[in-house]
């Protein structure tokens, strides 16, 4: 179902289509040739709308905060709290979002940096060119970028990173990033050339994978790279912050890199960055209030409203590439009929679910491509919550409550569904709402909580022993969803539902090779349309990541790339630099 440009669409995207079209055109040459100029330092103030509508969380109005000239912003230790430990700083071993963000924005600068709309920006490579045939891409590296041990970042590092990423002995979690990259050739110290095949978001892998220092890791056997101490106790990066210390299960400490090139942002304002793992939300909130923590990453939405009342704190949010859904097993006779599945979706109050689980920080998910995605079709909307329509659809599909027991039957079999989920409190709440909603339309839902390790074999195994299950996962700008829907992958672990359409397969295949963003958006629209029609999933909600910070921490701006995207520009008001005084002072 499509809808007009209502208020939510305006808030969610706020982008005129002609502006989008202009950006589409602008984005293509940006891929073909990088530019030399580094982005200017971002100033405090409302976040500008991004051309692709990826909503950014700018700071709240800070006009009342004291203005401090740039040269007086240096110093202090910023303390950031997160629920989980950072597990590794090894770019090829990382599987968790927190570690990845710290790699991409603190410890390393990748070959190509990701712009607000997933467009490539110069990183370790100051420029790149694509041959007219489009099958070779040549990167020219900066000459002023060094590893933190003083060695220059060279073309050999780039080639080495790629070689390890595609090595079957290395369990790199995102092989799709480099599946179109076929061969590498180091032309000189600063120039490296790759042979490539056509691929949408060709450079995206380099935006999301930091470089490895060849001079430190060349003699490590590929199968041992994942567990090498480089990732856990002795990482050496090339980014704006240098590794100082790790206390496992407690914190990571980084310090400003005074030699970080000005063109890439220069030396960060803060002297030290400390990431602390605080697993208990109530404690993290208390530490934030007490001033022991400056920023709480991914704050608890339930606590956010109370924190926002504190005048010393600011609470903002930004869209996370994550959605929650119920997957229906269409191999089950009762769930084979698309009109039944549509009725189930329309009977579930997804707005209530989003509200209960995410408070003000969630929206009904429209489909498999979220609002955070640059190619999201902003005119798209979810199926409405309409229990009466759901009842009518179920009636038409032949499911009626003939015996008056409150549960519909067809051919003598009741419409009963077992809903699996993990024992998280959120899932229990959602299951209770789904159970109540579907009972209202005559569907008997029983929920069953299983540990993840027990649930996964049931839903991914060849015999798919489930009716429906509830889960959330994060997605990627590179839209390769073939494992979830393709007809030739019915045996794939993630083809839970057993639903497929050959015409969708063609769309999904095209999504892998289209480089033109306008076409990409059109294909995404078709993809969403087909999934919406068939409802193999009921999409529940998309999440917003909540950031809670002390107002004395300035310069924080986040968007779908993550919370740390402007970490080099963070600065502490002079009165809030009490910590780490002995270590502070301008390092430049």
């Amino acid at each position, binding site marked *: 179902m499509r809808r007009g440009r209502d208020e939510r669409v305006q808030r969610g995207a706020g982008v005129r289509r002609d502006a989008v079209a202009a950006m589409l055109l602008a984005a293509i040459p940006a891929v073909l040739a990088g530019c030399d100029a580094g982005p200017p330092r971002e100033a405090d103030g409302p976040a500008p709308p991004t051309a692709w509508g990826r909503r950014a969380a700018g700071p709240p109005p800070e006009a009342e905060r004291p203005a401090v000239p740039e040269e007086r912003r240096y110093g202090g*230790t910023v*303390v950031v709290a997160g629920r989980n430990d950072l*597990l*590794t700083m090894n770019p090829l*071993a990382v*599987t968790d979002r927190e570690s990845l963000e710290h790699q991409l924005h603190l410890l390393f600068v990748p070959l190509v940096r990701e712009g607000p709309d997933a467009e490539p920006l110069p990183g370790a490579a100051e420029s790149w060119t694509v041959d007219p045939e489009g099958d070779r891409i040549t990167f020219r590296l900066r000459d002023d970028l060094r590893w933190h041990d003083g060695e220059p970042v060279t073309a050999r590092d780039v080639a080495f990173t790629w070689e390890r990423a595609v090595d*079957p*002995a290395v*369990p790199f*979690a*995102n*092989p*799709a990033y480099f599946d179109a990259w076929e061969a590498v050739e180091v032309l000189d110290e600063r120039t490296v050339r790759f042979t490539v095949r056509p691929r949408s978001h060709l450079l995206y892998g380099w935006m999301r994978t930091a470089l490895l220092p060849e001079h430190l890791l060349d003699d490590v056997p590929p199968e041992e790279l*994942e*567990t090498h*101490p480089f*990732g*856990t*106790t002795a990482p050496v990066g090339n980014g704006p912050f240098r590794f100082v210390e790790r*206390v*496992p*299960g*407690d*914190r990571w*400490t980084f310090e400003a890199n005074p030699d970080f090139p000005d063109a890439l942002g220069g030396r960060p304002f803060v002297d*030290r960055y*400390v990431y*602390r793992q*605080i*697993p*208990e939300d*109530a*404690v993290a909130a*208390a*530490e934030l*209030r*007490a001033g*022991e923590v400056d920023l709480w990453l991914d704050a608890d939405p339930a606590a956010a409203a109370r924190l926002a009342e504190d005048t010393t704190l600011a609470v903002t949010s930004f869209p996370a590439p994550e959605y929650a859904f119920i997957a229906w097993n269409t191999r089950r006779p009762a769930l084979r009929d698309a009109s039944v599945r549509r009725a189930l979706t329309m009977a579930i109050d997804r707005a209530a679910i989003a509200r209960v689980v995410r408070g003000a920080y969630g929206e009904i998910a429209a489909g498999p491509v979220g609002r955070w995605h640059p190619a999201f079709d902003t005119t798209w909307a979810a199926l409405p919550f309409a229990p009466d329509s759901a009842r009518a659809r179920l009636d038409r599909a032949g499911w009626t409550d003939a015996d008056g027991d409150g549960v519909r039957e067809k051919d003598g079999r009741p419409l009963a569904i077992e809903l699996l989920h993990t024992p998280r409190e959120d899932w229990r709440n959602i299951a209770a709402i789904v159970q109540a909603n579907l009972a209202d339309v005559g569907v008997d839902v029983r929920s069953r909580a299983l*540990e*993840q*390790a*027990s*649930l*996964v*074999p*049931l839903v991914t195994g060849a015999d798919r022993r489930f009716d429906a299950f509830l*889960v959330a*996962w*994060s*997605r*990627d700008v590179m839209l390769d*969803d073939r*494992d979830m829907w393709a007809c030739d992958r019915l045996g*794939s*672990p*993630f083809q839970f539902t057993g639903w497929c359409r050959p015409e969708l397969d063609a769309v999904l295949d095209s999504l892998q090779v289209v480089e033109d963003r306008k076409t990409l958006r059109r294909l995404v629209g078709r993809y969403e349309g087909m999934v919406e029609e068939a409802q193999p999933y009921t999409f529940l909600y998309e999440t917003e990541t909540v950031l809670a910070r002390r107002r004395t921490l300035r310069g924080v701006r986040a968007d779908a790339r993550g919370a740390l995207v402007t970490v080099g520009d963070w600065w502490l008001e002079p009165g809030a630099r009490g*910590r*780490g005084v*002995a*270590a502070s002072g301008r390092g430049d």
Partner: protein
Amino acid sequence: MARAGRTRARGGRLGPRRLTLLRYLGRRALQAVPLLLGIVTLIFVILHLAPGDPTAVWFNPNLPPEVMERMRVNMGLDQPLYIQYLRWVKAFLSGDFGYSYTQFRPVRDVIADALPNTLLLGGTSLLVIFGVGIALGAFQAVRQYGRADTWLTFVMLFLYSMPGFWLGLMLVLAVSSGVVPGLRLPISGMTSVDHALLGPLGKVADVAAHLVLPTIALGLASAAGVARYMRGEMLEVIRQDYVRTARAKGLPERTVILRHAMRNAMIPVVSLLGLYLPILFGGALVIEVVFSWPGMGRVMYDGILARDYPLVLASSFLFGLLVVVGNLVSDLLYAVVDPRIRYD
């Protein structure tokens, strides 16, 4: 008179007693080997019998099946169970606990980082448990049925029935919201972010300050239990003839209570010390999460959730070892505080 006789008897049997002790320790150590092997074998079987494997943690379509398979191969999960078991036992016996799948580090390193922190927290908690428990229990017994005894009984029962995590959260909220004016204590972590910049004494004071709240949360409920136990023992002891005799001799009441009554009442209480070790280890699992204390409790908690087999097996082994050692310490303390007990 009785005391002198006991000293003489000890002096006369010192040589053979030490030999007997060594023989006893050796026998208990030998008994512990099959017990510990049995514990870890059982945990190995239970972990592997449960459906699914550690790759379920990475349940994400961004991770293609071939990468999952590579991870399984790297973890050795592609091998038959008995091969995995034999490999693990062989490595284990040579001191290699394997790699943690989730922490990308040798399990030995993970434990070496976390165990001292848990032992520190456990040690200070033991001091609280027995220091506070014995003192309060004795005090209550002396003031039996007095107002202080009644109130302390109420408070002790309240604390004893409180879950550790709830108590911990209440402490955090109380301290952070300034319920006690002027009281500023760290509410999470083991050191402050400035720790590295402090001098040696400053570092000790920093860790000590961070220890206060988790120690109270971990120790107070058990201290309440010890206090109840101590009170009962004291009430029994102060009615004994030798206490009456001590009073009849004209000894000050303080000496009677501290030297004659308390020392004897402590005999069964002190022997609880060994049994509290594993309880502390289990309690730390929750308290360490609440207070962000980087210890074994959190390592084990995360390991279990992620089915990190090597980490869980090694932690379980340590846990089993602690129970065995705790029992042994308990038995030894019995004999130390009560000479009537023999090792043979």
